[in-house]
């Protein structure tokens, strides 16, 4: 199960956060900060998995992240999720955003947090991805370079 979805920029500013378990606001911010510290010091060409340790709910959990231009997309998941699957999911999520905003960039997320109904978007992306039969995706795609068609999602507007 996905425990949390965090999006923050290269400076650790949260751009979108969704916790699927309740934490107090302070704890949430602390988790975001710590996650940022863990993720930000990693090189570009290392693997995308991090053992999250005690960040969210115990050692069963992993952080799976991708770094696009100025944004980090971090999913915290437990062991019932396929690591590679989540990586693909992040990809689809980003592509969905890209489709919604036409060439998504950090500013879109900042200014349209509500418009995209965006906190719901990850969940929708999850179901959308699960609907389609994914071919193995090329990894480390650039954000502007979309090679897969995003399936028909329920409209966000």
């Amino acid at each position, binding site marked *: 199960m996905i425990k949390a979805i965090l999006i923050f920029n290269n400076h650790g500013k949260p751009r979108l956060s969704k916790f699927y378990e309740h934490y107090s606001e302070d704890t949430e911010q602390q988790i975001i900060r710590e996650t940022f510290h863990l993720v930000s010091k990693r090189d570009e060409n290392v693997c995308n998995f991090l053992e999250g340790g005690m960040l969210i709910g115990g050692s069963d959990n992993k952080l799976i992240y991708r770094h696009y231009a100025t944004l980090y997309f971090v999913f915290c998941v437990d062991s019932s999720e*396929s690591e590679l699957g989540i990586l693909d999911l992040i990809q689809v999520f980003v592509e969905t955003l890209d489709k919604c905003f036409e060439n998504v960039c950090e500013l879109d997320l900042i200014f349209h*947090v509500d418009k995209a109904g965006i906190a*719901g978007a990850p969940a929708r992306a999850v179901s959308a991805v699960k609907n389609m039969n994914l071919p193995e995706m090329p990894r480390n795609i650039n954000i502007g370079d979309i090679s897969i068609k995003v399936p028909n999602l329920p409209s966000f507007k």
Partner: protein
Amino acid sequence: MALKIVKGSIDRMFDKNLQDLVRGIRNHKEDEAKYISTCIDEIKQELKQDNIAVKANAVCKLTYLQMLGYDVSWAAFNIVEVMSSSKFTYKRIGYLAASQCFHESTDVIMLTTNQIRKDLSSPNQYDTGVALTGLSCFVTPDLARDLANDIMTLMSHTKPYIRKKAVLIMYKVFLKYPESLRPAFPRLKEKLEDPDPGVQSAAVNVICELARRNPKNYLSLAPLFFKLMTSSTNNWVLIKIIKLFGALTPLEPRLGKKLIEPLTNLIHSTSAMSLLYECVNTVIAVLISLSSGMPNHSASIQLCVQKLRILIEDSDQNLKYLGLLAMSKILKTHPKSVQSHKDLILQCLDDKDESIRLRALDLLYGMVSKKNLMEIVKKLMLHVDKAEGTTYRDELLTKIIDICSQSNYQYITNFEWYISILVELTRLEGTRHGHLIASQMLDVAIRVKAIRAFAVAQMATLLDNAHLLTGNTQRNGICEVLYAAAWICGEFSEHLENPMQTLEAMLRPKVATLPGHIQAVYVQNAAKLFATVLRSQEGNTEGTAAQETSQLMIDRLPLFVQSANLEVQERASCILQLVKYIQKLQQKDVEVAEEVNALFAGELNPVAPKAQKKVPVPEGLDLDAWINEPPSESESEDEKPKAIFAKEEPKHSRPRHTEVDEKELARRREARKQEQANNPFYIKASPSSQKVYQDAPGVEHIPVVQIDLSVPLKVPGLPMSDQYVKLEEERRQKERAEKKKKEKKKRKEKRSGRGKKHDSGPESEEDITPAHMVDIVTEEMPENALPSDDDDKDPNDPHKALDIDLDKPLADSEKLPVRSHRPTEAPKSPAEDGDTESAAPQEPKKKSSKEKKEKKKDKEKDRKKSSKHKKKKQKKEKEEKEKKKKKKHHHHHHHSDGGGDESVQNGTVEEEEEPLPPMSNYCLLAENSYIKMVCDIQGNLQDGSQVVVSVIFENKCDSFLKSMEFNVLDSLNSKLQRPEGAGPHDGLTVPFQLPPGVSNEARFVFTVQSIVMPQKLKGTLTFIVKNEDSSTHEKLDFKLHFTCTSYLITTPCYSDAFAKLLESGDLKCSSVRLEGVNMPFHHLLARICFHHHFSVVERIDSCASMYSRSIQGHHVCLLVKTADQTVSIDAKCDEPSLLGNVLDEIKQTFSQC
């Protein structure tokens, strides 16, 4: 008014929207907090306005601020307001905010129940969707209980979009309200075969998530999943299913055998790496579960390892990582197959990615053997030197220690080498693991007797060079090793080459800069050293040298006496005084060395970490009881002043065994050994040392094995572990040459001398004998220690509650609650077995289950009325069955001779006695060919003027019923509560639609003024019948009958309170006689309890007192007696007309049956 609206909308134009807020925050980078606090003030103002658009905008901004870490819980109520807006755009904002900041302790959540229910049944699928999404984030046990049924209905919604969400949210409902799992599970199972792949995948996800935590309950689904696995082409679903199988196989090895083939096929055929990886993982799990039974799966193992090798060799770091991860799983059971890839793994140690290096390190743990340990550790030591980040270096350090110390130092053949490694590790800069190295040093020095001399020499060097370790404040962690060094030098000072030099090193002024606990050890061990030095000096020269040593102590110790650390201070002052006393004796030429040494005589034995916990409390020992009466004069002659140093000899540690006889002792010891042998957490005893304990109490008798000095013990300066590697090689070669000659003898020696722990090694390993026989002392454990290792399961784990058997057929009582605690009647199902009622295993509320059962029976009765003969026969049979145990026959008056002491208090009559007759509170309201309405009327305890009418609507036709409107013509006394703004004659919309054959319940609230008289209200239900081609408007008239009974509320009452009430004299009396009542007394009572909301206060034989209370607080007391089919009821109440009406109603109830 109009002006106000205009003004409001103009104001709105100047309000900030979210974009403005974000822009503002970005423009105020320096004083962000201040800016936001002014924004929050604005938002507070906006929330006070009536305009819902303004509120929604404010809530939207709050949601953003919440994400930035500001507490917005104060606006919870406003969020609920926005949630209940009818406009979707606002509603969505409300639900989004709620999902972000509501949680179980948010109290306004209870206000949302009805709103959410309304949204769930909204005709607009997006309303439903947003409610489901929001609910999934903040569902509470209450919400889960109240809404479970609605959500379950949505699982069969026409739109896959809703079905999918409903299925997913059921998981959250199960977590919060475990009772819902069994009733909902059949439908969830259906969804596994839903035509829509999204819904199917959602169902797979939910079941996988459930099964992962309690796999054994889902084994029966294996065939279904197996079918899905072979038929589905959706990789996401496949991955989930395959992961699920990974969890199931350990429980059912037969499943594993079946899985191997399709999984292998998938591995060969799939192009998706993620699927391949999960397949490999599950095959590994299967092989692990089979590892004991089936030997012939080496092909599969080979395939897995080979595929993993491909992953590891891939340039994609992610695959490399996962490959190593999976490899470590194989390692546990099939270390051999992994060991052949040692090259690859060692290569990964050089990877630039830290995560990968760490994974590779994990794997190394399982790859060492006696042969390659030195080589691998050497390689790791090189990495330690190269590593730049401290975390990775620390990780390396702990791994080195882990690898070396694993399974009781199984792979170490040369402990001198190990000590040198430890000493080399102390030269690491800035490590956090000083204490780890220290504890290893202590452990080895204490437990490996043969190594002590060498260890002491090394430690003395360390102490001499302490400045290297402490010089830099950054290296603080490492100074912990000085703790070990000082202790080892002190405790085993007899091995010291030059104790005087070490003593001086330990008393250097620089020591005072060390942490307190280390200083304390220094001081204490300086005293031990002093004792040793004294002995050697007194022995061979005249007193002056010894006196000089004493003087040295007296000179240096005051430094420690001034220490801020209390323990250092205390120990230093004690020892200082002692030394001063010794000096005095020395000046009188008294020989003191022996006595000083006696202070520290005796061997310290290692004690297992859990030993203290495991000391069993002997039988008959009450730890809380006084051993002696609390003494006024305490005798302290038994107290040993030295106990603080834990110097007791082994013998002293178990005086309590004296009472256990020898035989018992031997038996327990045997049991303990057995247990230890099976328990990986115990460090196992080599038999020889065990014997030492039991036979020889004195330290002198411990046979320390002679060391073959093929390795020089003294290494000048700090040791270089490398030279041991070389020496070891030479030694092994030499040994191999000698081996043939000695072989026979050695074998014998091995068996007797080295004990169990070495036996596990393979034959080739056995050839390498340790450099010297190592006599590893066991850690002490108390005799007959309790077998434990408690389950460390988290008691708060929500999944524990979901450990529910799902294969049992559903009992009738297991239904999801509908709206109230009274469930709807399910559409008639043909021929239900009456006996299933007995199996209602996990029912949370006994009472409600009872009610359900009763209703069930009621239905049966209705059905059977048509064939009365048959029914009677059946009933008799059934009753006889149940009565076999009790040997009673059913006649209503049998109870009077059943024994005089039967007495039931407080509550409804117990069910066990005889089967209760079926009863239902729901009475028919109205019925036509389209719809049937049954209703139940209940008073509202919280509000003395309210009555709640629960109406179950049942669709009897084949068409869809919608737009139902419920309306009642109000009387002066009773009025239907309508929402604010509705006219007094407007109808209430029923908040759901009815598909064919479905029933659902709605509740309506009425206000009543006087409750002393029964009331009748006329009402109408209008609805639209929708066929495929046409829709017609229909109506149904009904009469609502508010009996006085419905104003009564079942209230328990204790007999003493009841007696007081009767004595008070405020109550008016009335009585009634019922003739010809042909039913057992307890049935009669149950009927009164059930239909008229009374509770039994006390029952004696055929006489019972009962109590109830009206919603306006009237007390109603009954005394019911029965004799020969006549029941007399004496009643008292403070309101005579109410009482009269209630009694009439009771009479009517019994006249009907």
